[in-house]
């Protein structure tokens, strides 16, 4: 710059420039995050370490089974439910419904405080006001002497609470409460009580050699699902000696798909089949009634005779003649002497004792309709949704003087009530459940109540103690002290008892005996061109689970449809009616009609359609409202001879012409020769192992690397042409000080055990903060101003996020459109990231967001991923999932955990933001936690010290995880089982997940083998 005056950059300009550049550096340089807080305790509670989980044992109250559950509590709130390994009922397993209780606890739509109906609308009130109104109303009813006509409807549960309720009701001069459960197998309970004297005898699959299931879906939603599935899987794991299952029914349920043979008996023909088996009826009559070849029936009769005391006949029917059929089935067991070997009344499960029949409920509704019920209480039951429209519950309920609801959810029934006194969730309250005649499983709260709710028993105690006349009969102030009062050893013994899975003893107070209402059966099947089967959904039950996004997003184990109702119709019938998948069908029975998209399913008889219960809520919350249709509208208000709701009916099915795509996660249900789900006959197990025997083709993937499960990590793929410089293999060097390379995390999945129940999918959602994407507010924009509000819209675009999915491939019977044949097989394959040694997804990632760790994991680093999605394109298993929207970002419209549901997020796992790829990580946080704990205790990892969430929850114990390089781990032995194979071996990916072939058995009642 020239220095003469007036020219060149003046000093002042220069300083200005310097200032500006300095400013930009400063702005960019220092990170201006706001300062975070480090809040200590005032006085730190004993034996709690902030950031380390505590496990509290409690009992699951989602259904009557009463599984033992460990609630993982982190910093004062449960974040996950796991099975209690020591509990005799579920032995460490837990089902999808059990785990989803978390979403019931933190449900954003729960009542947050008491509500009172003032001039027509329910408005929040304080607890004092609510108790005052309750006391005043009770006083009025008792003073006017109408207490004798009160009605208390409680969702059925075993344990001491029913006894307490009856004590309270009796004290107030009110009749005993009705313990109702519309999803329970009422007809089977009635026949069990008649035939074996107990509501639910123990079912021993291990002792059985031939199981006849008359629509008894013991792997779906019938009876005590988890213990049944545990025993079933253990029995089937005996491979050659496994019991054979014959499923007799009009619709092949999940249990049917696991059966060795399906006899598609026409609805109502079961009685004839039983007669044929017992020899009281002719085979020909049974064959014509069931519309099944005569040879099959005679083969069935011969097979039953051959099985002797190994026969286990179960009846799960709900048709008008269900009770009579149940008795005939019991006869079959007795005739073959299998009572005591396969059916054990002595070791009965006490879950269903004391359940009211449907007739009792109808009687109560009629009394309400007659207007002489002054006060009605409802707790956790939702008859407004789960009763046939014919019963007219809503109008009857309207005539009740004062309606009190203890339910904590705004479901259809509590919306009709005048006073809502929200109950604590079972994870927030004390209690117990009876799992055996003398086996009591205690229940303790795992956190301070999330909202301003109180346990019902405490509310009732408060009301009773406020009423001078009966205050003396209730000395204890709250339910806990009531439980402890009569507990041998007082509260200290009670505290230690809480840590036991079950304790001996009976409920504190017994249930009051009640004379069941009995009337002659009045169920009629009505008329129509097709039969309709209405069955409780395996995940949503009859509607209780509808407001939980995990259960809505979990595809139905059979049809793989989520967030929707559907009508199952046989492809042949669909073709005759000119109906394609997704076209709306109207199913009209005498009681009512529903319209839903058609789902061609070859597992129903051509003359039958099937609809699942559970959907169609008009209230209940953002995830359940106007999703699907309520199948109860199809059911008439009829009951069988034991007073239970009879569901079977005839219907006319018509096309409506409009169409909505099925929200399904299934691409194609056929393997197209890819060999993903492999199976072998049980007999072949005796023969030579031809798969892994000879090595005639060197380098053949299926033989070469199977024993060498350890992939050639870091061995140079180009062999000797490798770059000599790459000798420094970093941690992949076996003698690197960290010894990381010595380990090889692997997993085996036994397809012989897996029943396709999808509990592993929900366990993965719960452990790894996987977002649910199907809610109606999570769709994408169809145009700058309109959003796709359909429920399941994202799943229509194939964007579900389940890291592990349950694939259901069919075998056989490919000509389903033209001919009906029941002989097809379904194979279930849990498919997750295979953590391949030669992972195709790793070399294509441009930023090392995915690589192969020395201990055999295919790692996905969320904060390094830029989202090119090439890895998902290159993955032959398609197990990588992408965050299309900010499901994990709180300020997003598509946020997946509306407050307070984000409390259950696992703090050890990153919640992924938008634009990032995610996949199964073999629960790397559990591996780290195990390794950190081992290092803190200065020892090596013990064999089978920890496992992944899916393996832990699996009710079939089909998944085993561990270090395949260390032979003490059980996975190391299983990985070299003769049934072991890798999916897509020919792609040379060296997967770390080894599948064990499914073992098929010849159809027991096939004509050829009779």
């Amino acid at each position, binding site marked *: 710059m020239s220095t003469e005056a007036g020219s060149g950059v003046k000093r002042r300009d220069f300083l200005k420039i310097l200032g500006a550049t300095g400013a930009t550096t400063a702005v960019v340089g220092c990170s201006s995050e706001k300062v975070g807080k480090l809040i200590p305790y005032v006085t730190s509670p004993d034996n709690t370490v902030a950031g380390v989980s505590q496990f509290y044992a409690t009992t699951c109250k989602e259904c009557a089974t009463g599984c033992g559950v460990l609630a993982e509590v982190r910093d004062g709130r449960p974040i996950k439910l796991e099975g209690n390994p020591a509990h005799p009922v579920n032995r460490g397993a837990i089902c999808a419904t059990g785990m989803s209780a978390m979403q019931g606890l933190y449900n954003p739509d729960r009542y947050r405080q008491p509500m009172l109906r003032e001039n027509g609308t329910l408005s929040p009130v304080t607890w004092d006001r609510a108790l005052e109104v309750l006391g005043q109303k009770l006083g009025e009813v008792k003073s006017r002497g109408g207490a004798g006509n009160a009605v208390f409807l409680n969702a059925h549960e075993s344990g001491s609470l029913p006894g307490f309720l009856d004590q309270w009701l009796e004290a107030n001069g009110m009749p005993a409460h009705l313990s109702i459960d519309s999803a329970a197998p009422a007809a089977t309970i009635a026949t069990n009580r008649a035939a074996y004297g107990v509501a639910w005898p123990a079912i021993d699959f291990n002792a059985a050699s031939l199981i006849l299931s008359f629509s008894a879906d013991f792997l779906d939603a019938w009876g005590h699902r988890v213990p049944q599935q545990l025993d079933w899987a253990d029995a089937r794991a005996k491979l050659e000696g496994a019991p054979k299952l014959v499923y007799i029914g009009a619709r092949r349920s999940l249990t049917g798909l696991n059966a060795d043979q399906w006899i598609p008996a026409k609805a109502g023909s079961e009685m004839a089949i039983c007669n044929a088996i017992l020899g009281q009826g002719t085979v020909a009559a049974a064959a014509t009634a069931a519309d099944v070849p005569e040879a099959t029936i005679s083969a069935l009769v011969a097979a039953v005779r051959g099985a002797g005391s190994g026969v286990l006949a179960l009846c799960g029917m709900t048709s008008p003649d269900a009770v009579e059929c149940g008795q005939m089935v019991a006869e079959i067991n007795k005739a073959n002497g299998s009572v005591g070997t396969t059916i054990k009344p002595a070791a009965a499960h006490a879950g269903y004792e004391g359940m009211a029949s449907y007739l009792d409920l109808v009687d109560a509704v009629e009394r309400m309709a007659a207007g002489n019920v002054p006060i009605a209480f409802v707790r956790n039951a939702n008859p407004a949704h789960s009763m046939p429209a014919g019963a007219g519950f809503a109008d009857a309920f309207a005539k009740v003087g004062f309606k009190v609801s203890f339910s904590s959810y705004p479901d259809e029934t509590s919306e009709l009530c005048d006073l809502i006194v929200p109950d604590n969730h079972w994870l927030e309250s004390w209690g117990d459940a009876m799992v055996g005649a003398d086996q009591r499983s205690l229940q303790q709260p795992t956190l301070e109540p999330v909202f301003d709710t109180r346990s019902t028993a405490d509310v009732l105690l408060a009301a009773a103690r406020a009423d001078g006349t009966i205050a003396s009969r209730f000395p204890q102030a709250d339910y806990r002290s009531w439980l402890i009062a009569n507990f041998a050893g007082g509260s200290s013994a009670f505290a230690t008892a809480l840590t036991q899975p079950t304790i001996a003893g009976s409920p504190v107070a017994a249930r009051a005996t009640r004379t069941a209402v009995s009337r002659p059966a009045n169920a009629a099947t009505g008329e129509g061109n097709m039969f309709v089967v209405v069955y409780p959904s395996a995940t949503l039950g009859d509607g209780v689970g509808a407001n939980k996004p995990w259960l809505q997003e979990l595809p139905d184990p059979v049809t793989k449809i989520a967030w929707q109702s559907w009508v199952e119709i046989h492809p042949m019938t669909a073709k005759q009616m000119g109906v394609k998948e997704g076209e709306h069908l109207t199913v009209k029975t005498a009681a009512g009609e529903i319209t839903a998209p058609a789902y061609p399913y070859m597992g129903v008889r051509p003359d039958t359609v099937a609809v699942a219960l559970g959907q169609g809520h008009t209230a209940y919350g953002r995830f359940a409202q106007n999703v699907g249709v309520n199948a109860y509208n199809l059911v008439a208000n009829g009951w069988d001879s034991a007073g239970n709701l009879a569901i079977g009916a005839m219907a006319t099915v018509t096309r409506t012409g409009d169409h909505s795509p099925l929200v399904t996660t299934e691409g194609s249900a056929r393997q197209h020769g890819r060999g993903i789900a492999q199976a072998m006959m049980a007999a072949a197990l005796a023969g030579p192992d031809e798969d892994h025997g000879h090595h005639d083709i060197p380098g053949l993937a299926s033989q070469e690397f199977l024993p060498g499960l350890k*992939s*050639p*990590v*870091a*061995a*140079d*793929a*180009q062999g000797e*042409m*490798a*770059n000599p*410089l*790459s000798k*420094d*293999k*970093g*941690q*992949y060097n076996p003698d690197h000080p960290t010894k990381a390379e010595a380990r090889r995390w692997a997993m085996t999945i036994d397809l012989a055990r897996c029943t396709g129940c999808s509990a592993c999918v929900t366990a993965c959602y719960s452990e790894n903060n996987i977002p649910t994407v199907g809610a109606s507010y999570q769709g994408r924009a169809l145009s700058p101003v309109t959003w796709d509000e359909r429920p399941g819209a994202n799943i229509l675009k194939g964007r579900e996020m389940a890291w592990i999915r349950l694939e259901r491939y069919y075998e056989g019977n490919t000509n389903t459109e033209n001919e009906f044949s029941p002989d097809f097989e379904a194979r279930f394959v849990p498919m997750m990231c295979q953590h391949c*040694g*030669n*992972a*195709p*997804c*790793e*070399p*294509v*990632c441009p930023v*090392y967001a*995915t*690589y*192969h760790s020395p201990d055999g994991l295919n790692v996905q680093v969320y904060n390094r991923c830029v989202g090119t999605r090439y890895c998902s394109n290159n993955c032959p298993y398609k197990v990588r999932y992408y965050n299309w929207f900010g499901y994990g970002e709180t300020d997003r419209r598509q946020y997946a955990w509306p407050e307070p549901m984000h409390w259950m997020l696992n703090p050890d796992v990153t919640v992924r933001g938008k634009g990032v790829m995610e996949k199964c990580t073999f629960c790397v946080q559990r591996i780290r936690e195990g390794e950190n704990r081992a290092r803190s205790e200065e020892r090596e990892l013990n064999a089978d010290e920890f496992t992944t969430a899916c393996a832990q929850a699996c009710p079939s114990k089909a998944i085993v995880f561990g270090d395949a390089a260390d032979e003490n781990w059980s996975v190391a032995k299983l990985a070299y089982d003769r049934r072991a194979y890798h999916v897509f071996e020919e792609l040379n990916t*060296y997967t770390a997940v080894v599948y064990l072939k499914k073992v098929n058995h010849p159809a027991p009642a096939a004509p050829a083998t009779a």
Partner: protein
Amino acid sequence: MQGVLGAFHELDTTCHAIEDLKKARLGDVTVYSPTIRHEIDEAIDAPNSVVRRFTLIGGLLGVSFGYWISIWTGDYWPLVTGGKAIASWIPYTIIGFEVMVLVGCLSTVAGMFINARIPRLTTTVGYDPRFSGGHFGIFVSCSADKASQVEALLQKHGAEEVRREA
């Protein structure tokens, strides 16, 4: 620098003028022409351009840098992807090739700029806008005493215009 400038309109006359000037060796000759003409190049008979050396060095530098950065970063933080070697040189050949082309071309351009001495900030002596249009120009830088000889020679070869440049 001063010298004589002659503007021609025809190609053959320009070539003859260049050859005579070369024989007469009166001063170094700069020829302006609107485009590349081989006739002029042969008349000038200048040595082959050195740009090719720049290209060679640039290319070799590029390929070695390409390989080096790939292998060094691979070894710096050894992460195995897809069972491939940490420093697997086969894919790195592509990087080597691309960087070879990049550095090769840029060094060629640099070579051209350096040798042709552009970008040129000062205006040049003896340049006339017509030489980028349709005319050829010959500029002979010589002392004043030889200038008249040069002018005569240019006139002889039919230069349209001859003038002295300061």
